[in-house]
């Protein structure tokens, strides 16, 4: 592995500005790493020529001293972000061959800042999953393996490809989306940093929609500072997205002072679930000690609606998805399977184009919106969502940030947890509430399981207060001093 791929994003950015190496060299090193790690199956589409062309342009700007915020930094892009003239699939057969004539707002901002696109990463189909195993391009392998065990592990999902790529040092950073935990959970499984900002911070325009009120684009990186820097560029009001927050973007990196003295950190009692593995609990306790040592005050808080969050999510997300995915019908783009009538064409196309998990969720979503069930399910779920948001509002009068584990377990093996859909859903039990309430949240690698697998700690902040969330995350990162590296 080249030394260049061992840099953090910030180090690389600084090194480029200081002309210690060229953008071309930096990109080439990552392209080589990608080629050597193809067995991970993290990438759906590699874009080496495009990347080298962008790198050359970066070098020209850097030579003139006109480098942008991320000039020359090679990134991987989750294949849920539409990239102009480059295949974009959401890892679904139904988008076979789809070449968008437009660029998503978030990725456009990254390219405007000078970043380089290495390729599109794999994800659970239409972002529905926690293992990346539902991608139509096959599963992604977690670069981490259990100690003394050769079985491939899942990287988590849905942003599994992005997390694996960053963990295996194939990219300095990657974009992901988080709807129920799809950035933070794979980040935790892969021992990297993953965060989602407040809902509306990053534009959803050009991001293939899963659940509109829950989708959050965000960065996956190896350090908290890297994430702050990437978010700086990704965030910002977009007039093309009516749910985009008309709020200015603060200097996120400036919040990483390392000083969390006097902050109150909420520890929610309801997150202590029955049967929680001891290593997770132990890590959480260590986290509490770290923040106490750093001068912050842990405070017991209550989030009573926590246990209902997952079920609430599994009504709202499928409902919105069932409507968002109606446009995949074989008429204007993607797969078309012929039929002897329009309806037959729809039915054949969607049966062949969607995988089993996506179909399940579309059917659940259609059901809970259907006549006779709308009030009992969808409206009720939206009311409970109000209560969940209220829980947090209440809690945030007594604390400034909340600390929990990210996941109830470390990465599991491919093929495990497949007994029934619900076992897979439970992976998101700690991450889901922050999506429902639209609050910023981050996972920081904080320790190793008994098997030697990474475990993450999770910080939730107030709405539009990513700064405090980053500050606490930075303090945990320092205290944890996580230096373990994946085997692959």
């Amino acid at each position: 592995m080249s030394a260049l791929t061992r840099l953090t994003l910030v180090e690389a950015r600084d090194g480029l500005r200081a002309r210690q190496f060229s953008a071309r060299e930096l990109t080439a090193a990552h392209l080589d790493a990608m080629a050597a790690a193809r067995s991970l199956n993290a990438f759906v589409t590699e874009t080496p020529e495009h990347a080298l062309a962008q790198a050359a342009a970066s070098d020209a700007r850097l030579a003139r001293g006109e480098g942008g915020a991320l000039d020359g930094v090679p990134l991987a892009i989750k294949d849920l972000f539409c990239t102009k003239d480059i295949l974009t699939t959401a890892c679904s057969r139904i988008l076979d061959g789809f070449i968008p004539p437009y660029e998503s707002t978030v990725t456009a901002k990254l390219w405007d800042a000078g970043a380089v696109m290495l390729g599109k990463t794999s994800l659970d189909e239409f972002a529905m999953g926690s293992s990346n195993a539902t991608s139509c391009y096959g599963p992604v392998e977690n670069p981490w393996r259990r100690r003394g065990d050769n079985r491939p592990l899942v990287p988590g999902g849905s942003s599994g490809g992005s997390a694996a790529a960053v963990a295996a040092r194939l990219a300095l950073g990657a974009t992901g989306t988080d709807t129920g935990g799809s950035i933070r959970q794979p980040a935790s499984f892969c021992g990297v940093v993953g965060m989602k900002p407040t809902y509306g911070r990053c534009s959803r325009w050009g991001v293939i929609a899963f659940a509109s009120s829950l989708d959050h684009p965000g960065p996956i990186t190896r350090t908290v500072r890297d994430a702050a820097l990437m978010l700086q560029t990704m965030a910002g009001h977009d007039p093309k997205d009516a749910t985009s927050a008309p709020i200015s973007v603060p200097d996120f990196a400036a919040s990483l002072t390392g000083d969390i003295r006097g902050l109150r950190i909420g520890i929610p009692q309801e997150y202590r679930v029955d049967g929680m593995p001891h290593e997770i609990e132990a890590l959480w306790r260590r986290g509490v000690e770290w923040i106490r040592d750093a001068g912050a005050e842990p405070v017991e808080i209550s989030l009573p609606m926590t246990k209902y969050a997952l079920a609430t999510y599994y009504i709202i997300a499928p409902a919105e998805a069932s409507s968002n995915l109606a446009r995949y019908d074989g008429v204007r783009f993607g797969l078309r399977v012929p039929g002897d009538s329009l309806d037959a064409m729809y039915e054949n196309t969607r049966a062949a184009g969607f995988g089993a998990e996506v179909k399940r969720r579309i059917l659940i979503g259609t059901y809970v919106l259907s006549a006779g069930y709308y009030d009992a399910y969808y409206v009720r779920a939206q009311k409970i969502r109000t209560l969940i948001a209220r829980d947090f509002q209440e809690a945030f009068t007594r604390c400034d940030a909340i600390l929990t584990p990210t996941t109830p377990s470390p990465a599991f093996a491919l093929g495990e947890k497949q007994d029934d859909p619900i076992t897979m859903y439970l992976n998101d039990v700690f991450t889901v509430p922050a999506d429902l309430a639209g609050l910023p949240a981050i996972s920081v690698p904080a320790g190793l399981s008994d098997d030697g697998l990474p475990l993450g700690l999770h910080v939730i902040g107030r709405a539009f207060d990513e700064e405090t969330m980053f500050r606490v995350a930075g303090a945990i990162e320092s205290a944890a001093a996580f230096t373990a590296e994946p085997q692959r």
Partner: protein
Amino acid sequence: MSNLIEGRTGPWEVVIGLETHAQIVSEAKLFSGAATAFGAEPNTQVSTVDAAFPGMLPVINRHCVEQAVKTGLGLNARINLVSVFDRKNYFYADLPAGYQISQYKSPVVGKGEIELDMPDGETRRIGITRLHLEQDAGKSLHDQHPTMTYVDLNRAGVALMEIVSEPDIRSAEEAGVYVRKLRSILRYLGTCDGNMEEGSLRCDCNVSVRRPGGALGTRAEIKNVNSVRFVMQAIEYETRRQIAILEDGGSIVQETRLYDSHRGETRSMRSKENDFDYRYFPDPDLLPLELDAAWVESLKRDLPELPDAKKARLVADYGLSPYDADVLVAEKSHADYFEAVARGRDAKLAANWVTGDLFGALNKIGAAIETSPVSAAALGDLLDLIQDNTISGRIAKDVFAAMLETGKSAGTIVAERGLRQVTDAGPIEAAIDTVLAGNADKVAEYRAGKDKLYGFFVGQVMKETGGKANPALLNDLLRKKLAG
């Protein structure tokens, strides 16, 4: 007036509610920046948002909201300061997203009312249930290819106002008057051009029949009727169809039907039986629409004068009959033309000339008043020449015809053709003398009691003067001379 229909087994009452879809006049579409102009090449006015490409999002057009609020105010309706956009989910080739953005439980406009002036002089009040904003769908062409349907998305996403009437309409005739009145109001407001041939205004007719005083019957919906005439025909047919079924002991199926204007009948629409479940839910890509009360007030203040008010004013200020006023206010441009002519002149004369001669002429050459060869000012000049006796009413008609043809002013034509009315007694007396001298036998007959011959003498004298004798003076002098 009874609207009851005598059936074989007794009287029936038809109950009609109309849902009108009116395309909003705007440059761009309701949720995207694509153009709305009619008649463009297929798929050349389509944004990736309209075509529901992956990742696309709607952003609402402020002007379309304004047009909907103005329309609500023009219908004397309640404006809801908070309203919500919902997705109406169903699959069809011209609906790219698989859902239409519409408003279901919380529309932007609530209850209102329209007054209809019926031909028999009666006034009927028809309630408006609501008005909401929604996207129009694209167009499917089924006749371009033997096995394929062609889809054009130019119209997909254009802003529509759906205006729902209460089921207060009781005859096909009333339905026709309602559509005409609604169309007129929309055109006055400038919120919809009401062009039914181009599809700017379309009606869904909900028709049911019942025994007078009885419970509401099952209704059928006749979709997408695109002319006033067809609305009335479709309702007539459907009413008879339903009565026939019921009188034979059958029952009405609640269904969607189409009006086939070639055959003059309504037909059941295929499929869509399973899809009455639209699974409405609030669109998560949009926020609730919140209107500022002060802004709504300012729109109300700035509303143009609407047909009812204009009609009342024309009757009051110009002494027109309600009938004449009605005809004139049907189109704002007609009323404006009339007022330009009538200001400072004889209103009745102006009304007659505008509604009779001008409209007749425009109809014949197929011109609209906006492109009338004779402007209001020019017509006014002509009327001035009548009123100051320069020409007679009869000659004026010839002058008018010449004005239409040549575009010249009335004054110019009268001068060029020497059409000035003769108002000197001398030449008229001379002409009378000539006529009487040449028709001595008839003079004798007249003096003997054959009064009918009077008209003959008038005609002859007029001919003798080249039609230019002032009629009143002619009569005066002729009578004297005939009396001897």
